[in-house]
């Protein structure tokens, strides 16, 4: 059941109407039931059973960690190991099998391809959908319980609701317990006209991004990526840039839909994007892109790695060898933690060298190198008398960040790591700037009128993002408004006259209906981040 479908619309309306009619004590139970139904429609019976077993084991472990076990540390490690093995074993089977194949190949042995195919098939059949999201959510919860950051949730139903709240069972955001527990079951949720309209508007906006922009960009991106031998030189750069916007509108559009639906139900969820293309460095970019994944890794991996015994010893060793000042400057222990986190981000995106390199190690290395080069760069700027407090320098940094980002991201779209490198070799083989002037871009699967629709839609997107950026820093994030600048844009709209607002969204609705890429010719219900 895709979020953009008639079935989901009907499902959500039923859930919403009944939800607001129920007393507070029943509302969370109803959401739990809805989550079960939603998951059942998206998974096979076997996958549902595995999901339930996963929840039961994790719930039992959470009880054992806090009470009843003489060695909670062992219970915690065991359950985390189980969750990781389950995630890796079912989700990244082909990746590990490929490594195994490579190792056996080194010793001159082959593998039985028949068994390989069977293993992949069964792993796929058993792997519960959205495992990459709910397993992280639950592991984060267990870690918080183990560290004593939060109180144990004794009610198994509430624990299950936290892990399976249905808007999250699409593509996140990867929430932490404290971010949602307050609203999932701790209060009576009343229907609010303003919240309904605001949420519905956000859903529409997300659908617009996905169906009108992302799907159009996908046509051109697919054409170039699938036939890159035919499209060398600047076509590759163009495709990489288009893919960045495709992924952004796809994923942030999906987040708008998820957060909009959840807002209608009076359960605010954390934002996952914050105008990332305004970032002035790659590190900042990743603080604004897929925020909850970065936050999760920071909270549960990066700090955890830093606090391990080995890292402590390593830090001591570095201090001894380099001295405190140099350690602060080069900070190797922190960089190791950072690289591990980035490796995991790459791995999370998919079991393949292209993911691990493109959206993992490469990004980590660029961030580390730019940190290491910072003092040198500062000296250079000073020596050349470059003004840094002006628009042109900010623009330069944004453009630089954008190109650093799209280089890595282009591997995400490529089938393999070598495929990605071949593309970039082809990018530098020809210099063909005329493609931007001789109508060549109209032959990439969308015609001139479609291209104009795309430009116009992106202009709307740009206008909204300019407004969002304008309000950046205005107001502090709270539980109800985790992204105040976005809230400001919506307040700006909310402050207009009723008729104007209505017309605005009717026009948006018409644009989606007419310009949206959906129906039999398109696979619009497929979100890129829905695969994880």
């Amino acid at each position, binding site marked *: 059941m895709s979020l953009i*479908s*008639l*079935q989901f619309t009907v499902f959500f309306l039923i859930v919403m109407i009944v939800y607001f009619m129920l007393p507070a004590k029943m509302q969370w139970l109803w959401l739990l039931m809805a989550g079960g139904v939603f998951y059942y429609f998206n998974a096979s019976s076997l996958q549902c059973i595995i999901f339930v077993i996963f929840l039961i084991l994790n719930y039992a472990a959470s009880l054992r960690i806090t009470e009843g076990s003489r060695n909670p540390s062992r219970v915690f490690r065991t359950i985390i190991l189980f969750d990781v093995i389950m995630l890796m074993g079912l989700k990244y089977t082909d990746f590990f099998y490929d490594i195994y194949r490579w190792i056996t190949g080194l010793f001159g042995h082959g593998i039985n391809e028949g068994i390989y195919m069977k293993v992949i098939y069964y792993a796929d059949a058993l792997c519960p959908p959205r495992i990459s999201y709910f397993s992280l959510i639950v592991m984060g919860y267990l870690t918080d319980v183990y560290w004593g950051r939060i109180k144990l949730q004794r009610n198994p139903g509430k624990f299950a609701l936290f892990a399976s709240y249905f808007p999250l069972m699409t593509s996140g955001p990867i929430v932490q317990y404290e971010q949602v527990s307050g609203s999932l079951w701790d209060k009576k949720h009343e229907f609010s*006209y*303003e919240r*309904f*309209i605001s949420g519905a508007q956000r859903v529409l906006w997300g659908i617009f991004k996905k169906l009108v922009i992302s799907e159009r960009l996908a046509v051109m991106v697919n054409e170039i990526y699938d036939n890159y031998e035919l499209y060398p030189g600047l076509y590759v750069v163009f495709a990489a840039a288009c893919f960045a916007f495709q992924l952004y509108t796809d994923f942030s559009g999906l987040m708008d839909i998820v957060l909009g639906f959840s807002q209608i139900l009076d359960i605010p969820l954390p934002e996952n994007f914050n105008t990332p293309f305004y970032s002035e460095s790659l590190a900042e970019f990743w603080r604004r892109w897929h925020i909850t994944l970065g936050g999760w890794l920071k909270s549960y991996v990066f700090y955890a790695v830093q606090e391990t015994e080995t890292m402590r010893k390593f830090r001591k060793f570095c201090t001894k060898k380099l001295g405190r000042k140099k350690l602060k400057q080069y900070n190797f222990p922190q960089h190791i933690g950072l690289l591990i986190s980035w490796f995991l981000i790459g791995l999370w995106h998919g079991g393949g060298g292209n993911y691990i390199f493109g959206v993992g190690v490469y990004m980590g290395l660029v961030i580390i190198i730019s940190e290491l080069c910072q003092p040198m760069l500062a000296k250079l700027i000073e020596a050349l008398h470059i003004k840094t407090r002006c628009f042109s320098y900010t623009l330069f940094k944004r453009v630089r960040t954008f190109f650093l980002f799209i280089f890595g991201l282009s591997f995400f779209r490529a089938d393999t790591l070598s495929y990605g490198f071949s593309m970039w070799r082809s990018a530098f083989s020809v210099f063909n700037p005329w493609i931007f002037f001789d109508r060549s871009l109209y032959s990439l699967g969308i015609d001139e*009128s479609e291209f104009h629709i795309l430009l116009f839609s992106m202009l709307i997107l740009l206008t909204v993002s300019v407004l969002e950026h304008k309000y950046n820093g205005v107001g502090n994030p709270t539980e109800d408004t985790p992204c105040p600048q976005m809230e400001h844009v919506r307040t700006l709209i909310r402050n207009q006259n*009723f008729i104007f607002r*209505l017309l605005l969204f*009717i026009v948006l*609705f*018409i644009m989606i*209906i*007419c*310009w*949206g890429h*959906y*129906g*039999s*010719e398109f696979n619009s219900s497929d979100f890129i981040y829905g695969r994880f």
Partner: protein
Amino acid sequence: MSDKLFSNTKRINIIKLVIVLAAFFVTFITLDHILLLKSKDGISQMQAYYKQPANTVDALFVGSSHIFCHVNTGVLWDEYGISSFDLAAAEQPFWNSYHYIVEGLKTQKPKVIILDITTPGIRPTDYQPENWVITNNYGIKRDPNRYESIKVSALKESFPRLLVALNSTHGKYKELSEEDFMNYSADVRFKGFDARETVVPFEAPDISGITGRYELTEKEEKYLLKIIDYVKKCNIPLLFISSPYVITTDEEQEKYNTIFDIADEYGVPYIDFNRLYDEMGIDFSTDIAEILHLNRSGNAKFTSYLGQYLASNYGLTDHRGDPLYSSWDEDALYQRQDTLRYNILMAAAEGANGKYLDLLNNRNLVIFCSVPNEYPGPEDTSLVQYLEQLGLSEDMLTGPSSYVLSGGQCVYSSDEPDFKIGFSDGNRRLLFSKTTDDNGNAETLVRTNGSMGYQCITPYESYEMPDNVLSFYVYDTVLDKTIGGYSIQ
């Protein structure tokens, strides 16, 4: 006070919510209506059917394109006064025919229902390609019957998507035209008939030796029996027909034989027209449009024969002259004019000048004629009499001059080769203009003032105007379309 204020705010919010939901609903329905395919392969037929006055359709034809391409409702009216309707869609399977009959009987009480049974022979499948699912279903009003019809037509995985028409039709925004907003074809005058016009000679198939039986699929048989049962319950006579076309495989006829066995079993009369070519006078060298369909000449013969059968077996009233049935008069006139248009084009293609001019002698045509400078008169002097019939006497054939002829009279003349005139044909005002460039190429434009004000019927149509020829450009006021240019030496 605060309670009152709260309740007022709440009330206002409820009103706002209702307005928002209504606005979105209206927008959705309007877009659905505008972007819907205006197709005479089924959708326009159903939409026009809803506009027929209640209980006026006496003979309801249901089935595939063999109905809407073969049963000329104008001929049935002109020859027998039968008020009929072709409620059919392309390659319609029995399950859609069933739902068409259910829909059809909501507003009409026909004296006979005629079911075309050829789809199982031509398209033996339980699930049609999506384009046919669309044309067979999207004309039906949104109600449980439409829901059921789409459900039975679509594969399980496609059903939710096909349920919302916009999923299939929204791409039409690129080619929207006046027709999409006004939907002229779904008019009370349209009785579903849509002729094919090509002429492709074939050898007449010989099916006399095909006596075997080929099983219907379970789904086909189920819905055939449902149709028989439903129509019987409604107490309306049912007739099965297999209309003439070029049968190429034994299995096709064997399926029809199986259906006729079922008809025998349930007491439903049937006619196998593929065994009656001689009786109808169908000539496969001139009456076939393509392998599946009759052309204008063929459908006139077929309909005439069928009409005779219906008139004598079902006691159908001759409604000609009854004002309630005036739309059938208009449909018949439209069909006559459409046939005339076809014949004019054929005569022009053959270069049969006399026949061409003779056919132009029709009161519903407006003719532009340009006479070049120092025109010596037609080479074939026998044409003079035809020109006079049109209102163009011999002394008018000195150029340069331009004439507008209508109803056998010259209604406008000018000494200039180019003109722009306003003209009324009784129902509406027409605006014609003609311009000639330095190379002697003429361009003609016709505009009418329809309900939306002046509207362009033709874009500027360009045609060559050689020296020393009489040039003609014809506009049909009934069809509301031009019939193109022609020149005579």
